[in-house]
């Protein structure tokens, strides 16, 4: 058995004039030699421990301190000891341990009954505990009353009050009640013991209504049913009412979330490039476009050559069709799609500041395909269901490709290295499946917040010229705009920023001018596994190929361009066919 030490269980003062301490002896007496347990006490300002003056009055294992030993607001310490062995110790002051006795003399009187006789009010009275001197005001007591029906289990509590009487309202006369009260000192928190239970029975005084057992409860069910019906009728009548104003008043239209300037239907069903072009109006989207370099391509448009019939034709097509296109793609509709805010209605401008331009991508494979077919550089086709017959034919191109290994420029790093906001090219979806002539495209240099694509052919040519002048020793074909990266790298020119208005990434344009097959080849399935293999210098490569299908932001399916296989006379320095060369190629 475990040895249980003697412990002081509690010290209590019922009236703030005396106090008693109680302890438990444990099994100490049984296990060891019987020894005398003493309770010693000490006031805070004393040195010596004194023994308990009265072991008897409060009962077994207790110590009673009468009024002469009690000083109320003085700190005491008591300890349970036996021959210098201290078992337990407690320190307190008397005003903290006040637990009053229970009230006495509970009784109740009937106040009144209801008209039906079912309910009644009673008044409960009691006396304060006799030990507590409330009369002199030495101690102030609070009382808490609890009552319940006889066959209930849970007591209902009233909040503590100072008065010694309390009314209880609306008790059922048919039932019997039990009441109990306890008290506490007003400034403390602990209650004393409960008083004896007071039984309340209405039948004893002759007003018990045994036959009125049925209780008329509030007809909640009917209330709910009728309320719901009325509300439904009201709602239906309002919704069906012809008066829109009333309807608006009661049921205001819920505003659907809407990005300013964006048609939610467009977001759901529109093509990506269209969405992109719209969203490019918002600046924070623009940067994402720039980072999405998978299908960004750069096309250079040689504006300097007005004799180019093809370009003119393409220009016309761009302008005219684009004009139409702008209305179809991003036309200034009257709906709240907001495209009008992005698109300028006056699209046809010579600087190709169209909100969307036709882009074409160049790929070596595409070029070869184009050599076999009469295809033009196409714009991005918006409809996905357009057939792509030419793409499947990649075998002869692969042979060619294999021979082009010497000029394998690292295209990929270019694309990846250009982190700066490259102008993302809005691929314009063209409804035209075939172009009669080669189209030439300008490099998109900027996309204005208004949604206009600013092409920079001039700067490009300027830059090209600048580079040309500085790299005169270079041997590459200096037509005005196209250079290989390799050649460019040899004579990297830091173009002055003021020459190119948009930004300092002009220099990167040279690199960006070249299409990154790396990015394309991941998605162009029909092209086979053509990795970043630039076309060799031997093979004239179609610079631009129309993108036939946009599968996803990652996917481009390219149409073979209509470029025939160029003759060897074309001095393609690194696989790029310059504009002039292309002009010669294309009919």
């Amino acid at each position, binding site marked *: 058995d475990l040895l249980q030490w003697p412990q002081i269980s509690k010290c209590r003062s019922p009236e*703030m*004039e005396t106090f008693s301490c109680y302890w438990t002896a444990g099994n100490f007496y049984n296990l060891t030699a019987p020894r005398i347990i003493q309770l010693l006490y000490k006031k805070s300002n004393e040195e010596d421990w004194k023994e308990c003056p009265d072991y008897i009055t409060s009962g077994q294992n207790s110590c009673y301190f009468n*009024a002469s030993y*009690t*000083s*109320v*607001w*003085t700190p005491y310490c008591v300890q349970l000891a036996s021959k210098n062995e201290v078992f337990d110790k407690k320190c307190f*002051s008397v*005003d903290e341990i006040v637990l009053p006795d229970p009230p006495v003399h509970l009784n109740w009187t009937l106040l009144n009954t209801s008209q039906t006789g079912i309910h009644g009010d009673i008044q409960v009275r009691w006396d304060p505990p006799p030990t507590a*001197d409330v*009369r*002199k*005001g*030495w*101690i*102030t007591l609070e009382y808490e009353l609890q009552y319940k029906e006889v066959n209930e289990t849970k007591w209902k509590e009233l909040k503590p009050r100072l008065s010694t009487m309390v009314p209880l309202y609306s008790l059922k006369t048919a039932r019997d009640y039990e009441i109990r009260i306890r008290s506490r000192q007003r*400034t403390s928190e602990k209650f004393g013991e409960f008083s004896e239970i007071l039984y309340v029975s209405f039948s004893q005084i002759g007003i018990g209504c045994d036959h009125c057992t049925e209780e008329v409860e509030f007809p909640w069910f009917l209330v709910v049913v009728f309320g719901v019906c009325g509300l439904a009728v009201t709602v239906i009548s309002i919704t069906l009412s012809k008066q829109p104003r009333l309807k608006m008043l009661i049921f205001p239209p819920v505003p659907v979330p809407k990005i300013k300037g964006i048609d939610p239907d467009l977001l759901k069903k529109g093509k990506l490039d269209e969405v992109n072009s719209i969203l490019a109006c918002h600046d924070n989207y623009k940067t994402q476009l720039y980072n999405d370099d998978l299908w960004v391509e750069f096309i250079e448009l040689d504006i300097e050559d007005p004799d180019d019939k093809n370009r003119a034709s393409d220009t016309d097509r761009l302008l005219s069709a684009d004009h139409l296109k702008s209305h179809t793609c991003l036309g200034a509709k009257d709906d709240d799609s907001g495209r009008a805010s992005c698109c300028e209605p006056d699209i046809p401008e010579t600087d190709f500041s169209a909100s969307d331009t036709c882009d074409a991508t160049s790929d070596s494979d595409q070029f070869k395909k184009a050599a076999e077919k009469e295809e033009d550089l196409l714009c991005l086709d918006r409809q996905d269901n357009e057939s792509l017959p030419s793409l499947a034919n990649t075998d002869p191109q692969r042979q060619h490709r294999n021979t082009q290994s010497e000029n394998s420029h690292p295209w990929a790093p270019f694309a990846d290295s250009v982190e700066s906001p490259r102008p993302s090219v809005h691929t314009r979806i063209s409804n035209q499946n075939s172009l009669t002539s080669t189209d030439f495209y300008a490099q998109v240099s900027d996309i204005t917040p208004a949604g206009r694509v600013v092409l920079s052919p001039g700067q490009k040519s300027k830059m090209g010229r600048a580079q040309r002048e500085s790299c005169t020793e270079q041997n590459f074909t200096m037509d005005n705009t196209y250079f290989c990266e390799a050649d460019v790298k040899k004579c990297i020119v830091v173009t002055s920023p003021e020459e190119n208005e948009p930004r300092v990434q002009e220099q990167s344009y040279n690199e960006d001018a070249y299409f990154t097959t790396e990015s394309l080849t991941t998605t162009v399935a029909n092209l086979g596994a053509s990795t970043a293999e630039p076309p060799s210098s031997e093979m004239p490569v179609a610079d631009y190929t129309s993108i036939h299908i946009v599968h996803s932001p990652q996917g481009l399916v390219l149409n073979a361009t209509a470029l025939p296989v160029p003759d060897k006379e074309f001095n393609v320095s690194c696989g790029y066919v310059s504009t002039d060369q292309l002009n010669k190629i294309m009919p």
Partner: protein
Amino acid sequence: CHTSGMLTPNGKEYVQKIPREELTHLILKLLQAWKEPLSHFNQHIEHHQELPDDSLSKAKQISNMVHELKTGVEKVTEKMRSMGIISNSLNGMASSEGTGLSISNEANMMSDTDFIHCFRRDSNKVQSYLKILKCRIMPENSC
């Protein structure tokens, strides 16, 4: 507690035995002794960020109550003197002011819990004294 040095009756009989003037004087002395430490305590806990706002407001409220109680007791004392219920012993009042200042310095060095503990005890004391005093002066009112 900084008021421990004050000689106050610690039992009901003693409180009932001492003359009313002395009891009144004791009450006022106690209230005065807490005036300065309470204001100092309020300033002290205002800088405690972790205390909830209602604690701070409660502390201020308590300070105000103590001050009002002291003012009220002074007024009642004046009234009682004028009515002859208690005799005039003005010198007792003057000395209470002086001792109050010296005691309050000691109060500033207490910890917060001790401060609250002491204040609770002294407020209980003041309440009991006032109750006894009231029932001694006017025994018919709910005594």
